[in-house]
């Protein structure tokens, strides 16, 4: 019986999530990427920044026993770069998403809950931020400031919150009209308390799903900026690997082993995030899964199943397999 998943506890959340195959695959993909980033020093066969031994054979050397993914133009091991590169990509992704969701969540809840002029002001500001194309603005800001890792995180973070803000605002608007908010006010609760104890718990599932999806966006943005050569040249990320491969002739040399790994890494993480986000959404918002109209059909199916069992084994069974 999958009557209703109890999503109010962590174990309940996990029980509901476990059944979602795509979500679990996404989680595993993401965990593998995180594991790779955390244990990079143990996993990487070489120092990603030090050239192994610059001989003519080592430049754009194809995959071999010593270098599983070959070497790049500076005779550096691509596999080691790929493993270390995940650190920067994931760091930027997580921190930037955290900033985005914090700003977006705060603006959304504030605008939705307080309404009036506060809402008008905040939402018009959001609209302005929404229509400014993210990438050119990010390029301009990064170009004007020093292109360090934290600057990139900051820029991606402060540009990516608009969608979250709008989403959270609309959810807040619907939650604040619920009767229990009026009840809490009747009890004598203040605005802060109501937001904290009554609004946020209902907005939180939305925020969690949104965070996972924003992470993938942030990783994509980071890769784009790095690819455009706007990242800190001393840090190593997947986007930067692509940039080097593109600008230093890996394409014309036909060295696909330099291009493919970072591209594959980006797709892997973004896909993992998306699958995980959708999986979480299905658990946290069960209405996506079973519409009330769908219930009838399921019941009929289960009944037919039950009668089949009875017919084939000749024994009455009263368990409905739902």
């Amino acid at each position, binding site marked *: 019986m999958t009557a*209703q998943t*109890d999503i*109010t506890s962590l174990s309940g959340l996990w029980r509901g999530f476990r059944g979602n195959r795509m979500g679990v695959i996404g989680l595993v993909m993401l965990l593998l990427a995180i594991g790779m980033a955390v244990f990079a020093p143990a996993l990487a066969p070489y120092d990603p920044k030090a050239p192994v031994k610059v001989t003519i054979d080592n430049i754009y050397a194809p995959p071999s026993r010593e270098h599983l993914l070959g070497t790049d133009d500076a005779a550096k091991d691509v596999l080691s770069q790929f493993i270390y590169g995940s650190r920067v990509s994931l760091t930027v992704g997580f921190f930037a998403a955290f900033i985005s969701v914090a700003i977006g969540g705060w603006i959304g809840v504030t605008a939705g809950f307080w*309404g009036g002029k506060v809402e008008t002001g905040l939402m018009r500001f959001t609209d302005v931020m929404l229509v400014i194309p993210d990438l050119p603005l990010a390029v301009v800001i990064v170009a004007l400031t020093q292109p360090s890792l934290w600057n990139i995180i900051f820029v991606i973070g402060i540009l990516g919150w608009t969608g979250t803000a709008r989403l959270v605002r609309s959810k807040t608007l619907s939650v604040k009209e*619920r*009767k*229990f908010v*009026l*009840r*809490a*006010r*009747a*009890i*004598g*609760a*203040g605005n802060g*308390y109501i937001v904290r*104890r*009554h609004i946020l*718990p*209902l907005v939180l599932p939305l925020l969690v799903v949104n965070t996972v999806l924003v992470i993938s966006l942030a990783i994509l943005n980071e890769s784009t900026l790095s690819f455009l050569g706007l990242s800190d040249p001393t840090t190593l990320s997947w986007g930067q690997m692509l940039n080097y491969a593109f600008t230093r002739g890996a394409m014309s040399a036909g060295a696909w082993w330099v291009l493919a790994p970072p591209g594959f890494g980006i797709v892997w993480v973004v896909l993992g995030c998306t699958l995980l986000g959708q999986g979480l959404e299905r658990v946290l918002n069960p209405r996506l899964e079973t519409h009330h109209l769908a219930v009838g059909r399921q019941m009929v199916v289960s009944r037919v199943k039950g009668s089949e069992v009875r017919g084939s084994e000749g024994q009455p069974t009263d368990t409905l397999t739902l």
Partner: protein
Amino acid sequence: MTDQPIPPDMTTAPVLLDVRGVTVEFVSKGQPPARAVECVSFRLRKGEMLGLVGESGCGKTTLMLALLRLLPEAGRIVCGQIDFLGRDLLALSEQQMAEVRWTGISIVFQGAMNALNPVRTVGDQIAEALVRHGTLAPALHSGASAGVARNKKAAAPRVGELLELVGIGANRSGQYPHQYSGGMRQRAMIAMALACNPQVVIADEPTTALDVMIQAQILELLDTLRHRLGLSVILVTHDLGVVAEVCDTVLVMYGGVVAEYAAVDTIFNDPQHPYTQRLLHAFPDLSKPEEALVSIPGYPPRLDALPPGCRFAPRCPVAFERCHVEPPALHRLDGFHWASCHLVSNQ
């Protein structure tokens, strides 16, 4: 604690709540303000159960929310006075008002499912009021020492006690609203309303969406608790049968004004306002099974298009010229009987 009913004495018991001429308007942009409640006055004495009856949209809930100053943003209390224990609630600061809510006057909302937060346990939500007001006074008059609830943990025994008081096992305080039945949710709401030992409990249609059996249980519970804890209750309802059974006094509202206000016996035996008379005719009486039910033709007035005279005039079978031009004042008939009708003033 006694289970003996406190005899409601409508003349000598101390007045808890004195509402005088309360008028509520709703303002919306580009439109004239809509008067939802006009010049409503009544008195609530200690131990009294007042029945507030009227059709949907006649301003019952608005009036109740006005008492707690919990009107939606567009609502304004434009005039009147609400004295609670000698203090004018309309003159209090928002902070002082927050103190009065729940410790002085609490409310059982219509539709318990909506009034409970679905993602938090019932016990947790009952504890909310206790923690907010820092009171852990056990059930009124029991004489045990009152503690202070600083956190949810300290409030747990009292939460259990409150749940037991309304007939729910204390072990169910850790459950979520969806694990409760409809009747239990309503009981939990009553427990919540009683948390801070209020003197006045407003029950806003506490039995809507419940079946007749559960309805009877909830009303019985309210009545029992009233006698046990010495509460004054304002019962908002459509159900005249309920009013006849449990209420001491009745306030009949129509289109935002008081139509008639009297003791329950007077209302049922000697109604003066044509609306009250028609309302009673529209309600089945088991003792006269042969009598046909007569509905009142027409609809209640729209708030943005109120008739210029008496608000009931367009539907009133005995209306005459004056009714259509001049709104009647609330006339006092005798000791405890008021009605707003020109016919009454002619007598």
